[in-house]
């Protein structure tokens, strides 16, 4: 109940029952629900630990496509690359130079290149399945895959530090940074432990997961909204707002491709930064 300039209160909740918000066939708009989007019914091996639903099949397809592309171009490599091979080489070089050499340094990066390239290309292909028509759900939108990549990066930087500096020196350098007076270590060491060994894998996981979940929910909302507004809401209002949501869905589709690539790059970049912090003297 709100008071306008006049003396009697006005109830705005009556607006919701105006005819323009009612569908032509009497059904309302059903927004996407989390269970329907991210927990599809199991298809194969039901009720066993290997039960596969649609999302796991999409992850397998993404992994097979990635493996196929890389193996195909590795077996047929030519010294003077044709156009497609140079496209694949650009992708690999992006991970090797921009992530590896820039962050870790050209002399030390070679032993970490496979790990960084796995992370970058794997997450890139898993994110791109979110915009491929037909698949349309990112392989990284359930927590398992970002968690595995984050644990890979986590144990990667810990083992890199232990192999480079020895376990005692690595943990001492991480937990007790130099250059502070000794009483501060009582507060600083738990904070550093929390920040370096607990928060890092958690934020890596949840950054990737939530970017993909949020992007998928907005895309589904826009597509379903366009369908509802065009086909089930009669009148000019439906077509006009449906045009808006259609333009929005195209724009957000392009944005989602960009976000998928950016999140893969950021994951690989942060893994490289953690490795370079672990191995720095």
């Amino acid at each position, binding site marked *: 109940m709100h008071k306008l300039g006049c003396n009697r209160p006005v109830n705005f909740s009556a607006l919701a029952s105006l005819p323009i918000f009612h569908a032509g066939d009497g059904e309302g708009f059903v927004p996407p629900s*989390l269970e329907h989007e991210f927990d599809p019914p199991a298809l194969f091996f039901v009720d066993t630990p290997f039960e596969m639903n649609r999302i796991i099949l999409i992850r397998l397809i993404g992994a097979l496509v990635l493996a196929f592309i890389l193996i195909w171009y590795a077996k047929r490599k030519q010294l003077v690359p044709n156009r497609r091979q140079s496209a694949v080489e650009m992708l690999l070089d992006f991970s090797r130079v921009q992530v590896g050499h*820039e962050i870790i340094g050209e002399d030390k990066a070679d032993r970490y290149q496979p790990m960084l390239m796995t992370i970058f290309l794997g997450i890139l292909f898993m994110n791109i399945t979110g915009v491929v028509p037909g698949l349309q759900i990112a392989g990284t939108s359930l927590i398992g895959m970002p968690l595995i990549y984050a644990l890979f990066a986590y144990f990667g930087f810990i083992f890199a530090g232990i192999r480079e500096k020895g376990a005692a020196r690595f943990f001492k350098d991480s937990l007790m940074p130099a250059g502070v007076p000794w009483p501060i270590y009582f507060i600083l060491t738990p904070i550093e432990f929390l920040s370096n060994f607990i928060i890092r894998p958690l*934020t890596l996981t*949840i*950054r990737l*997961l*939530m*970017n993909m*979940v*949020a992007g998928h929910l907005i895309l589904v909302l826009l597509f379903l909204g366009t369908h509802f507004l065009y086909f089930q809401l009669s009148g000019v209002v439906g077509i006009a707002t449906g045009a808006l949501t259609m333009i929005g869905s195209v724009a957000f589709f392009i944005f989602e491709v960009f976000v998928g690539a*950016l999140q893969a*790059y*950021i994951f690989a*970049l*942060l893994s490289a*930064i953690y490795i370079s912090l672990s191995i720095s003297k």
Partner: protein
Amino acid sequence: MIGNIATIGYGIATLGPAIAIGVIGAKNQEATARQPEVAGFLRVNMLIAMAFAEALGLIGFGAGIVFGA
């Protein structure tokens, strides 16, 4: 009041990361304008800082999903 308070919580959680990302982007533009030859180097640092700031906003979104009804 009808609706979910988790969405209000998420709405408040977007304020901090929004301001942070705006400031990071603005400072990056300013620094690139002052010295364009280090633009690539500045861009990498901007992306790192933006990743950290955006993660907090997305943790707010996730907390709303996990703890909401």
